[in-house]
């Protein structure tokens, strides 16, 4: 009897757990990127063609919740056609013209429902653990991101470090980009963010977790705007978010200033015109930035003292011959030139955010919450009205550390 019980028990364990959850790696439909558009988008290359209608039929599903509001496009890699696989095969060519990914679009109101419906169009099981990017069209972002992101933050397969981008126009187009080196546009786009240490015009923190945290805290924030061509993606400015809604956009140079003010600058380049020299330009490679923002409270309108300390290397000059002539005095002059340039840009950006967008993207609110809790307790409900009137005092100091290999 004991043996029989033991056999039954083993069979029970083997049949009911572990193995039943097994999915072979080749049967998983790895979703690398998701594009979210307002309904309806026009499928890639099918604009005005007969196939468009056929594709459209595939995108629609019967809904219990009225007309669809969104479309969700997922990018699945065709692993057999990845450049690595082709190289390992007989041809030795990595640059096959064949499609390396499959973009499937579904229209609906619930993202989970669309996700499940995608499973009806592919023989692979959609698997989101390796999701790299979520691209959202500005039309959707202007209506609010909280609803759109709920599924992505709630589903256990999703990761908080998935990167989120906004695009002007159709988000699906960005997924359609065929990168020259990478196989998949999603991975290409996700890796661009890693270059934030090289260019201050790229947002360093753009992940789902940070975005949702800002929304839950009621903070204004920014997201990168991306543009796609046939084979290239570019970070082209930032979307300004007030609560969870996009209220506008601005260029990458304002992002630089936001990063200076918010102590998020990871490195980049600073160029400035040299006064007294026609068309002369000097370039500083910014290596390290430390910003300290101190609130001063006197009445309802606070003043923020923003001290920015920049360290970097003098890396280039144009239209000025400095070879063999760089001395301490020149460096001190250039430090002041760069400091003035940074200060001017920061002041302009603060003004823009206060007057045009009325969005506290510098998150001064967090400084008040943490450093001046008594003030915050009293005025937190009025912050939206107070922010445009906030006074700032920007002090920038630049220290040139190296001058490259040429004096």
């Amino acid at each position, binding site marked *: 009897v004991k043996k029989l019980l033991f056999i039954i028990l083993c069979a029970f364990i083997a049949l009911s757990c572990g193995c039943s959850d097994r999915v072979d790696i080749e049967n998983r439909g790895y979703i690398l990127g998701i594009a979210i558009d307002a309904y309806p988008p026009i499928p890639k290359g099918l604009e005005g063609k007969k196939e468009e209608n056929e594709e459209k039929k595939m995108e629609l599903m019967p809904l219990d919740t009225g007309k669809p509001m969104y479309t969700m496009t997922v990018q699945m890699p065709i692993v057999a056609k990845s450049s690595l696989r082709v190289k390992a095969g007989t041809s030795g060519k990595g640059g096959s013209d064949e499609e390396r990914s499959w973009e499937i679009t579904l229209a609906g109101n619930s993202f989970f429902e669309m996700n499940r419906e995608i499973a009806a169009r592919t023989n692979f099981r959609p698997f989101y653990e390796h999701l790299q990017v979520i691209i959202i069209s500005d039309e959707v972002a202007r209506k609010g991101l909280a609803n759109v992101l709920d599924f992505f933050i709630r589903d256990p397969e999703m990761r908080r470090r998935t990167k989120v981008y906004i695009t002007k126009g159709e988000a699906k187009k960005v997924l359609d980009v065929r990168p020259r080196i990478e196989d998949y546009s999603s991975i290409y786009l996700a890796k661009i963010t890693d270059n934030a240490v090289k260019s201050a015009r790229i947002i360093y923190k753009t992940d789902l977790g940070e975005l949702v945290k800002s929304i839950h805290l009621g903070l204004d924030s920014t997201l990168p705007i991306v543009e796609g061509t046939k084979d290239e993606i570019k970070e082209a400015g930032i979307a300004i978010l007030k609560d969870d809604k996009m209220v506008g956009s601005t260029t990458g140079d304002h992002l630089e200033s936001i990063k200076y003010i918010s102590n998020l600058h990871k490195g980049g380049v600073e160029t400035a015109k040299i006064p007294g020299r026609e068309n002369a330009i000097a370039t500083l490679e910014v290596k390290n930035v430390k910003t300290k923002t101190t609130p001063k409270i006197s009445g309802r309108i606070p003043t923020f003292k923003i001290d920015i300390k920049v360290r970097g290397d003098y890396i280039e000059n144009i239209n000025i011959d400095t070879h063999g002539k760089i001395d301490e005095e020149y460096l001190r002059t250039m430090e002041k030139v760069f400091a003035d340039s940074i200060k001017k840009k920061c002041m302009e950006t603060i003004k823009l955010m206060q007057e045009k967008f009325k969005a506290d993207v510098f998150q001064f609110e967090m400084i008040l919450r*943490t450093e001046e809790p008594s003030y915050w307790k009293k005025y937190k409900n009025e912050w939206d009205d107070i922010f445009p009137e906030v006074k700032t005092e920007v002090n920038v100091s630049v220290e040139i550390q190296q001058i490259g290999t040429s004096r």
Partner: protein
Amino acid sequence: MCREERNTMKNKKLSPSHAFTLTGAAILGTRVLELPYTAAVVAGNDGWISTLLAGILSIISGLILFKLVTLYPDKDLPQIVQEIGGKYLGKVLLIPLIVYTLLVPGFTIREFSGEVKILLLDKTPISVIMFILLLVIVLTLKKGITVLASCVDIVFPILIVVLILSLALSSTQAELVNIKPILFENTGNVLKGTLSTYGAYTGYGMITYVACHISDRKNLFKWFIAAQIVTGILITSMVLITLLVFGPTEIKTLVYPLLSLVKAVEFPATLFERLEILMVFTWIPSVFSASSIFCFASVRNILVLFNLESKYVNTVIYIHLLLLMAIAYFSGNVLQSEEYSWRIDEMALFIGLVFLPLLTIADIIKKKKEAKV
């Protein structure tokens, strides 16, 4: 191990260092995964201070309990309670201990099985996950405290290493702004939080069940206190880093903050992309260890309550399988389970801060009176 020893579940074959591993595992394996949530809900950004204070409070309770253990070097807690309380009152006093030592593993297994289902085995029925975990616990208990202690010896150091690794990697996302302002108009909540998070430390009480199995008692106290200090530091660090990464507002929106923390790790090495899987794989044996220790305590409580002979040990162990399955089922969905967990924490407060200290004091007074006579 002789059959008699196994059946009575008492054999003095443990070394003092087992006080460290068994107590440490009992503390870390239960009620810890949801602790950042409890701390954030009650004490907000100061939740880590509450957790630290709760740790200190648990050390004080531990010292009182250790005094009780030293007064009865050859007895475990149910026997001590029986001795102090007498034939009838002693049995009544055992009831809260029985309820607590049964509820803790039951809820721990239910909660953890839910996490395993969400993260790893989404198609496996939760009852199967719970049953298998309980089955391993039952089989280990049948083998006695020595086997249980040996299993814990293997599991506990791995858990410590993985926990430290997870916290270190997660700390790269930490932002000081998330725990500021410190103690601003929040002292009352911090104190409330201290009581609410105290429940996470009650594994220290397991010393009263294992101390009598330790032959060399010279270094027992050092190992016991070391376990409390090490786990206290780890648990406080865990709550602190979770708060530093997410902040209290965000933690309140998370069902499993610690797992979300590990999932949020962003590290250049792709190896760490699925760190949460490593964490879950480590936590499974950890929950097994802690639940086994609590079950061991529960079995001892029931044996003493009903004055059962050693031949009934296995029967009591099998009954535990059914009882714990019933408790795990009863705990309902994640929100209901959480509600019950708060009640269990209140029970832990009563046992740890009222019941056992009073018992110790009563015994000391009783002994002094006896000495005078």
